[in-house]
């Protein structure tokens, strides 16, 4: 099994300390492109696609493995071991925050810190816990996804990725763009939104930064507070950015907060 090919792993950058960027549900490593340039000079950059997303090898998809966030955590660990990374700064968006957390429980010695962008340990409301959603909302999301895949295949096909009138988007778009096999995307959605990692928070020994957006419906403020209260050694930072993708909507602020945390740790 060629893990580099399987997960479409890309490494570059001028530094030695590795930063591993893990995309969230709904996209692929392209989503990091506004953030990563700020770290290329001082870090070794590692970006990848989960199996089934972006340019990964769809043939390596295993339903049993990837119906559970632990299966995705295994991807992360395998990549780290394959590249012989140490003291990894793991940057995870959305569900990848919890995937990184699981990986750091399994192999704490590999990680230096976890950067969580819009994390949530549990999306569904529970007695005494506000996750933000009811089970029926998630069922409805799955239907919405289903419906979109009728036309989905069209605009995700490589030929349509070519976008001559928008050269600023760069050439990599011609290869892939947030394309996910519909069946896989749906299973990823289930693994994501039905996960409950509240019981795992106390097990983490690696320090973490929680980046909480203002007004994020996927990870509301209560969730960030809950995480901060239950995650040992965590720092909570509330961003001015709204929505769920600050690294795309407000990359400058996201970069600033990230750098501040990393530099603060170094001194």
């Amino acid at each position: 099994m060629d893990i580099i090919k399987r997960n479409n792993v890309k490494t570059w950058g001028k530094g030695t300390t590795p930063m591993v960027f893990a995309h969230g549900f709904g996209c692929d490593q392209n989503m990091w492109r506004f953030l990563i340039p700020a770290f290329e000079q001082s870090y070794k950059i590692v970006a990848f696609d989960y199996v089934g997303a972006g340019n990964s090898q769809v043939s390596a998809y295993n339903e049993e493995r990837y119906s559970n966030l632990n299966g995705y955590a295994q991807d992360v660990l395998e990549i780290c071991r394959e590249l012989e990374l140490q003291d990894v700064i793991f940057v995870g968006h959305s569900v990848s925050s919890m995937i990184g957390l699981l990986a750091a429980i399994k192999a704490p010695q590999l990680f230096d810190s976890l950067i969580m962008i819009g994390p949530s340990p549990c999306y569904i409301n529970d007695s005494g816990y506000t996750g933000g959603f009811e089970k029926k909302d998630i069922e409805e999301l799955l239907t919405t996804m289903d419906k979109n895949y009728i036309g989905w295949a069209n605009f995700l096909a490589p030929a349509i990725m070519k976008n001559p009138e928008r050269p600023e988007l760069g050439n990599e778009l011609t290869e892939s763009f947030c394309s996910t096999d519909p069946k896989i995307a749906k299973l990823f959605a289930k693994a994501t939104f039905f996960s409950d990692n509240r019981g795992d928070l106390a097990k983490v020994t690696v320090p973490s930064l929680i980046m909480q957006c203002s007004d994020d419906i996927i990870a509301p403020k209560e969730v960030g507070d809950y995480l901060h209260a239950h995650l040992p050694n965590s720092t909570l930072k509330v961003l001015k950015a709204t929505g769920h993708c600050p690294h795309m909507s407000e990359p400058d602020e996201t970069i600033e907060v990230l750098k501040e945390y990393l530099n603060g740790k170094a001194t």
Partner: protein
Amino acid sequence: MTNWLDVAPCGYLSFRDDGSIVYLNKTLSRWLGYTGPELQGRKVEQICTVATRIFYNTHFFPLLKLHGKADEIFLSLRAKDKRDIPVMVNAERRIEDGVPINHCVLFTIFQRQKYEEELLAARRDAENALKENKYLEELRAALETRTFELERQYQKQVVQHKNLKQFNKIVTHDLQEPIRKLLIFADLLASDLRESGNDRTLQIVSKITNASNRLRSLTAGLQQYLTVDSDLVDIDVDLNAAVEAARKKVLDGRKLEDLKIEYVSMPSIRGYRAQLELLFYHLFDNAVKFSDPARPVHIKITWVLSDENLYKTEKEKYLFVEHLRLNVSDNGIGFDNEYQEYVTELLNKMTPSTEGLGIGLSIITRVVENHKGTLSIESRKNIGTTFSILFPSKIHE
């Protein structure tokens, strides 16, 4: 002058990257049940169902931002009176005066939606049937291969078992007698020699005695190894009790005053009590045996529960169940990691200067295997050794 866009038979919506609405036409306002400009400046999410809000954040916005456009996207809007309005959206992103604005054209699809739902349901049924069929086919093929393999393995094991029984008898019975005799005659010889005062020969005889004693403890160890599997009833084992029992055994066996073992209360796991006690006994005994005389033995046990794949040898099979990862570290003399496999091999001992017989490690490996666990060893010379053991917390048949 009529603003044609306001009366166009489609919805029109423009919003910024932060989701704030810049413009929506009157048709869309009317669909949503709002009058006047009350939605101006509000968030797009406010006119979406919860599911659409998620989809907007995870798919629609990233797509627009990265790709510059998104076509034929299905979304559900939420009207003021909480009714759902299914719409099809085409969107494009334009930079106007340096500010990116996302423009959307929306069509309601009440009729179409019913048709699509039927299509989807039919496709789902077909897919499920196909999947089930394929799954059953694969299962059948796998079962056939497995049955054949099992049969072959069983036959092999019958032979092995016979050999093992024979071997066991030799070790536990036949070998004991000559060893006992060796010791007796060496003893007699020694007392004769002491009278005649032949020191050199006496030295040789004492070497024979030492070697025989060693042989005896070696066969005792082997016997223990062979009987590991006899404990066959799995129960919920209190690991704290197992650790304490093992500590006591080491203290008694080595005639020690104290043995420092640091740990926080561990959970129970489903397993074989006697075997787990034996496992801890050998871990601790090894730590004492390979300790550095320069510092007192200090053993540290840490643990964490985490979901891991139950299938260890089967490829492409996954079932994530709760596992206990135990790390038992000592501050002994350690060894170079390149010897790791060598270490666990039966009867290999690392340093000629120690009394180690190596059998402890083999028993540890065996117990871990019997609990469907995995073992890895990491050691640093002159610093210590850590045994990492991963057990399923319940035994799954």
